[in-house]
């Protein structure tokens, strides 16, 4: 490639940037592993996992389960509803299909803040101010994005394969489950991951929907804990933050290859 001079400067600049980027984490790690943490940035005198033990027990443990239920529920529901509609949308020339797809493109831009008040009202009226309500609301908000993305992935599956399978006597269900789904596995993983992390990180909807502390997911729990005045247990909160951040980070690195291939299509195709 280029001569080594500029590329070495670039490499040093990049390394410097990486250090700056990651430096805020020092505080998080130092406090989380310090059983005597005071919230200061300091080298701990003792190292231990006591904070993590606290952060998985009692209320904190329940919040982890709540977050898991909301995230996995939303991702799975979005993918199932998305697949069952994206396949017909991809294959059939339904009248009004293009209008529907353009509606989706527009709805995908819709900020959730814009429909917050009606969502809250509808949930209150139907007794859904709870986790199921959060799952349904997030699925509704997610669906335009999920549907468009899955349709794009299904469009890339060659129809000739399906024809061949039909000639061999496969039913619709077999064609979908044995050919279409396996061939768009990477795309489905991307969609599932996006919905999962989106719901896992979601703060505003659970803040409004969760009325009792037992129903708090980790986002609201963490916010409520660090907003409190008085004795803040920084050791507990930092350990809690690490546990809260772990699944989204972990799932990404597990699916990294899929993510980066699937990613190119996320923003660009309408």
């Amino acid at each position, binding site marked *: 490639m280029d001569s080594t001079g500029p590329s070495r400067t670039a490499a040093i600049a990049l390394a410097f940037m990486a250090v700056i980027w990651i430096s805020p984490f020092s505080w998080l790690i130092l406090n989380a592993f310090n059983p005597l943490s005071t919230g200061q940035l300091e080298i701990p005198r003792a190292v231990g996992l006591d904070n993590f033990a606290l952060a998985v027990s009692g209320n904190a443990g329940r919040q982890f389960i709540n977050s898991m239920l909301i995230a996995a529920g939303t991702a799975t529901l979005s993918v199932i509803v998305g697949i069952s509609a994206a396949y017909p949308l991809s294959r059939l020339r339904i009248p009004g299909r293009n209008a529907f797809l353009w509606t989706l493109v527009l709805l995908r831009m819709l900020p959730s803040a814009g429909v917050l008040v009606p969502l809250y009202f509808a949930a209150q009226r139907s007794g859904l101010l709870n986790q199921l309500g959060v799952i349904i609301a997030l699925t509704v908000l997610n669906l335009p994005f999920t549907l468009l993305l899955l349709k794009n992935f299904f469009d890339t599956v060659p129809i000739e394969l399906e024809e061949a399978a039909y000639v061999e006597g496969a039913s619709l269900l077999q064609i979908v489950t044995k050919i279409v789904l396996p061939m768009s596995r990477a795309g489905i993983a991307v969609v599932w991951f996006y919905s999962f992390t989106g719901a896992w990180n979601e703060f505003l909807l659970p803040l409004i929907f969760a009325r009792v502390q037992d129903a708090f997911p980790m986002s609201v729990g963490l*916010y409520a804990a660090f907003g409190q005045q008085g004795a803040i247990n920084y050791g507990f909160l930092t350990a809690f933050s690490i546990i809260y951040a772990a699944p989204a980070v972990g799932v990404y690195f597990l699916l990294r290859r899929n993510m980066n291939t699937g990613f190119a299509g996320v923003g660009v195709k309408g």
Partner: protein
Amino acid sequence: MKNQANPWLTSNLFVLGLGLLPAAILIGALLYFTAWAFAFSFTDLALVGRKSVEWSWVGLQNFERLFTRRGFLESLWTTVIFVFFSAIVGQSVLGFLLAALLRGTQSTIRSVVEVCIMLGWLLPDIVAAFLWSATTSQTGLINQLIIVPLGFPPINFINEYALPIVTIANIWKGTAWSYLLFSAALDSVSREVVEAAKVDGATPFQRIWLVQLPIIRPHIATNMLFITIWTFTYFPLIFAMTGGGPGGQTQVLAVFLYNQSFSRGNLGFGSAISVAMLIIVGLLSLVYLRMLREPK
């Protein structure tokens, strides 16, 4: 013409239609909620109390309040500044520079930098807020490592420079998305074109500015619009770091909407704010659709 010859589809139209149904219902619900937000904005509906049941139509009163009372216009301006500096200047430019620089470097450096940037993006909003509150606090990293060793008294950044701090926090959090998109876009630029420019004697800067940038123009448009819209309506980071304070300095529209609707309980007025946000986002989306339709 495609499906006439596909008997496994035509003989199962009922099943396929059934598959479309749940999605159609949910999308219908979303449209219905949007219409509802418009309807609410003409009422004096409240979260609690008498007006939560016996609300009445108040015409354009809520929209008048948007422009005559303090709050909305200030929030709009704060939002514009926040979006411009954190999304357009920060995330886009930085994301592009990183994508361009990292293409020329070894794969180890590339992976390390990528992982560092991705960590910010993958971190849940509330954790990022917590982290940045701690980093910029009086005993935090910036004070202990830079300000105090230089002989200055520690600065309480979040009180004194609230808007710049949340802007930086958002750049830190969101650059990865622009980076990934630009990275994929630059991969799509064919090697031959860049090589040809090199042979013709173009400097690295010219290669980027005159060859690669024009080719990935649609990607730039896409990226700009998505991050503009996201940042325009972004709520958790700012809300958790400052709650809109101190003194409304960081009260972007999403925080203003939340405070009005759910802290003060003015759902009618809150809906008018939503409608204003929807209209602004709608206009931005139209610009986006036009850009995509333009011939490349």
